[in-house]
C-alpha cells in the first residue's frame, strides 16, 4: 500500500512547475471569505479567470480525457495539483461548478460523440460555469418524482417548472437539469436530462434566504436560488442520454454526488481550531493545555482523520477504477455527521465566541461562525444522511432483494 503518490523525478519536477505557476498566476484578492456569500463579483471573476488559465494547461480537470479538453494526467499528477492548490485554500475548479463536475462526467458516460465534443471542452477548459438543477419542491430525496416538464416541439423541447436550492451567486453559463418528459410514463422511465444555456428566454433566477448555503469548502456557493422555467425552448440536441432515459444518467450523476469521487485536501476548519487553541490563552495558559479542550480537540482530530482517509480511499478508487459499492455514500454520510460533531466540539471549546462574527468578540475572523451555520445545513445537500444510509444498505445487499450496483463512472 502507498498512502501518498510515489513521485518520480519527472513528477517532482511537475510539482515545482505547478508551484511556480501557481505563485505567478494566483492573483491577490482571491482569498476565500469567511462566508462564501461574501464572495464579490470581482473575486468570482478572478477565480473564473484563474480557472480558464488552469484549463488552458489541462490542470483544471487534470484526469479528464485530453481529447475532450481535459488534462489527461495520471492520478499522481492530479494529487500534486490538488495538494498544491489546497495550499492556497482553493480547490479544483476554484469556484462553484457542480454542473461541470457532475454533468461533465455524466456527459462523458452518456453523451453522444457530438455532445461530448460540444460541451466537454467548454467545461474542462473552464470556459463555462454550470449549475446543477435537481431538487424541486416535491422532489427532494425522491428525485424520480421530478415534475419540471420538457415537451418535444419540432427541433426543440419546451421546459416548464421550478427548481430549488440551485447554484450560487453570480450566475451561470449552463444549467444541467433533469426533467419529466412523460408525465404518464412509468417511474424511472419518464425522465430526461438537458444542458440548458442559462441565457435562454423564459428562465428567471431568484436568490433564497437561507441560514447557510453550506457549499463545499473553498468553492462555497454562497447563495442558493429558485429557478423558474417558463416555456423555455431548448434545442433537442441538448438532450443528454436519450428521451426518458434520464434515470440511468442520474445514477452516474448521483454516484459522484454521493461521495464516490473522493477528495484530497486538509480540513480547513480543523486546522483553524487547532491553531486557535495553540495560540490563544485562557487564564494564562494556551487553550490547548486545558484538559477538557484537549478532549474536544482529539475528538475533532479523530473525526477529521477518518473523514480524510475515507475521502482519500474514494479518490484512489475513483481514479484507479477499483470496484466501488457503498464507499461513496459512506464517505458522504460520515462527512455530514462528523461535520456536525466537529461543530459541536468547536462550540464546546469556544462557547459564544463561536457564534458571532463580531470583529472583537467572535473567534476566527468569521470563519468559525460561518462553519457553525454550515454544519447543520450541510446535512442535506447531495442527499440527506438518511438517504446515504438507504443507498449504503442497498449496496451492502440488505436493503433490497437484489444488491444494487454503483452508477457507471467514466
Amino acid at each position, binding site marked *: *500500500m*502507498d*498512502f*501518498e*503518490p*510515489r513521485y518520480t523525478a519527472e513528477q517532482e519536477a511537475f510539482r515545482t512547475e505547478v508551484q511556480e505557476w501557481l505563485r505567478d498566476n494566483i492573483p491577490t484578492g482571491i482569498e476565500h471569505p469567511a462566508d462564501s456569500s461574501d464572495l464579490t463579483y470581482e473575486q468570482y471573476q478572478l477565480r473564473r479567470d484563474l480557472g480558464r488559465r488552469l484549463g488552458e494547461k489541462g490542470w483544471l480537470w487534470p484526469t479528464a480525457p485530453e481529447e475532450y479538453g481535459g488534462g489527461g494526467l495520471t*492520478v*499522481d499528477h492530479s*494529487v500534486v495539483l490538488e495538494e498544491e492548490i489546497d495550499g492556497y485554500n482553493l480547490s479544483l475548479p476554484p469556484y462553484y461548478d457542480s454542473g461541470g463536475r457532475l454533468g461533465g462526467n455524466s456527459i462523458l458516460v452518456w453523451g453522444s460523440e457530438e455532445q461530448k465534443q460540444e460541451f466537454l471542452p467548454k467545461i474542462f477548459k473552464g470556459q463555462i460555469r454550470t449549475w446543477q438543477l435537481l431538487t424541486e419542491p416535491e422532489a427532494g430525496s425522491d428525485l424520480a418524482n421530478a415534475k419540471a416538464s420538457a415537451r418535444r416541439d419540432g427541433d426543440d423541447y419546451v421546459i416548464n417548472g421550478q427548481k430549488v436550492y440551485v447554484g450560487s451567486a453570480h450566475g451561470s453559463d449552463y444549467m444541467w437539469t433533469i426533467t419529466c418528459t412523460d408525465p404518464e410514463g412509468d417511474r424511472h422511465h419518464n425522465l430526461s436530462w438537458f444542458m440548458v444555456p442559462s441565457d435562454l428566454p423564459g428562465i428567471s433566477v431568484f436568490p433564497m434566504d437561507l441560514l447557510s448555503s453550506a457549499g463545499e469548502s473553498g468553492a462555497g456557493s454562497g447563495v442558493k436560488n429558485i429557478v423558474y422555467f417558463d416555456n423555455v425552448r431548448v434545442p433537442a440536441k441538448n438532450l443528454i442520454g436519450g428521451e426518458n432515459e434520464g434515470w440511468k444518467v442520474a445514477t452516474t450523476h448521483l454516484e459522484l454526488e454521493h461521495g464516490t469521487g473522493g477528495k484530497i485536501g486538509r480540513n480547513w476548519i480543523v486546522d483553524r481550531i*487547532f491553531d486557535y*487553541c*495553540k495560540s490563544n490563552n485562557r487564564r494564562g495558559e494556551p487553550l*490547548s*493545555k486545558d484538559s477538557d479542550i*484537549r*478532549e474536544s*480537540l*482529539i475528538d475533532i*482530530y*479523530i473525526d477529521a*482523520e*477518518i473523514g480524510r*482517509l*475515507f475521502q*482519500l*480511499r474514494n479518490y*484512489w*478508487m475513483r481514479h*484507479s477504477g*477499483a470496484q466501488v459499492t*457503498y464507499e461513496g455514500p*459512506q464517505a458522504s*454520510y*460520515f462527512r455530514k455527521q462528523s461535520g456536525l460533531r466537529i461543530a459541536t466540539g468547536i462550540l464546546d471549546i469556544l462557547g459564544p465566541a463561536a457564534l458571532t462574527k463580531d470583529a472583537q468578540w467572535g473567534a476566527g475572523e468569521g470563519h468559525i461562525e460561518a462553519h457553525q451555520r454550515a454544519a447543520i445545513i450541510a446535512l442535506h445537500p447531495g442527499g440527506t444522511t438518511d438517504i446515504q*444510509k*438507504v443507498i*449504503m*444498505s442497498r449496496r*451492502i*445487499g*440488505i*436493503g*433490497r432483494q437484489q444488491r444494487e450496483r454503483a452508477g457507471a463512472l467514466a
Partner: protein
Amino acid sequence: MDLSLTEEQEMLKAAVRRFVDTEYPKETLLELQATGQNAPSEPWSKLAATGWLGIIIPTEYGGEGGSFTDAGVLFEELGRGPVPGPHISTAALGALAILEAGTEEQKRGLLPDVAAGRRTIALAITEADYQWDESDVQAIAATDGDGYRISGTKVYVYDAAAATDLICAVRTENRQHVGLALVPADAPGVSIRRLEGFAWNLAEVRLDGVQIGQSSVLSGRAMPGESPFAGGWLAVERAVANAIPLLCAYQVGGSQQVYEMSVEYSRTRIQFGTPIGRFQRVQDHIINLVNELDSARWTTYEALWKLDTERDAADSIHLAKTVSSVAYYNACNHAHEVHAGVGSTTEYGLTLHTTASRTLYQFLGDPRFHRRRLADALGL
C-alpha cells in the same frame, strides 16, 4: 498512491484464510475458549510450521523479513477467527522486544526459535496499578551473586498461560532503571494463574524470587559500565508502539468477520415475513458497524504504511489504537443488536469476538491512554 495489497499480500491473505478455515473451525475456537489451552498443542504447531510467526523477523535471524503491512495482513486474517494467541505476543511483541532490547547474541539465540514457534512469549509489564507507564512497574530485580532474583506480581498479562517464556519489565534495586528480563515460564518461583470470567487469555504472573543469570537480561541498549537493565523500558515502549498497528489489524479482522456475520444474518433471518435487513432500524446497526470497521481499517493500514516507509508514525499509532479498540468493541455491540438472542448463544460464535474485543480494548493501552498520547504527539 496505491491502496491495494500487493499480489504477494493477496496470496498471503488467501493462504491464511484457508488455514484459519481449516485448522481453526468454530468448534476448535470454542473448545480453546472453554479450556484456555492455546499452546503448544494443536493446532498451534501447525501455525508454527507455516513460518508465519517469523513474518517480521529479519532473515538473518531465521525469519521471513516481511514488512509491517505483510504482518498486518497475517494478523487481520487471524483476527477473523478470532484465533487465540500467543501469536501476537510471540511474533509481534516478543520478536520486536528482542529486536529492540536484545544483544546481538540474544537475537541470534532467541529469534530463530521465536520464528519457528518453538519459543512462545508473553510480555509481562502491567501490575496492580494498571497502566502502561514506566512508573507503574514495581517488580524488583535484586542482585544475587552473578545474577538476579526477581520478585513481584504482574497482572492482566495477555497470553501468559500459553507462553514458554515471559519478558518481564522489572525495576533495579536502586530504582533507577526499568529493564527487561527473559524468564522461563516454568522456572522455580514462577506461578501463572488464569483470570477467569469475561477476560480473554489474561493471567496473573507471580514472580517469587525467581533466579536468572546475566544472560537473561535483555541488555542490548545498556552502555558499557551501565546496569544491563538500562534502556530496557525505552526498548519495550518502541516494541509496543510498533506492535500496536499489528494488534489493530487483528481487531480489524475481527470487526470484518463480525460485519460479514451480521450482513449474512440480516439477509437470512426472517421476521414479520421478511428478511430483517429490510428494516431500516436493523440497517442502522449494520451501517454503524461498517463505518467502525472501515475507520479501523484505514487508520491501521496508514500506520503500517508509515512504519514500512520509516515515517514518524507516533500520531498514526495512537490514532489507530484508539479507533480500532473502539471499533471492534462497537462492532460486536452492533452485531448483538442485529442478532439478538441468537448472538448470545456460545455455539453461534459471535461471543468469541465479543469476549476478545473487551480485553483487546484495553490491551497495550486503552483509548483514553492513547488519546492522551495522541494529544502529546500532535503538540497540543
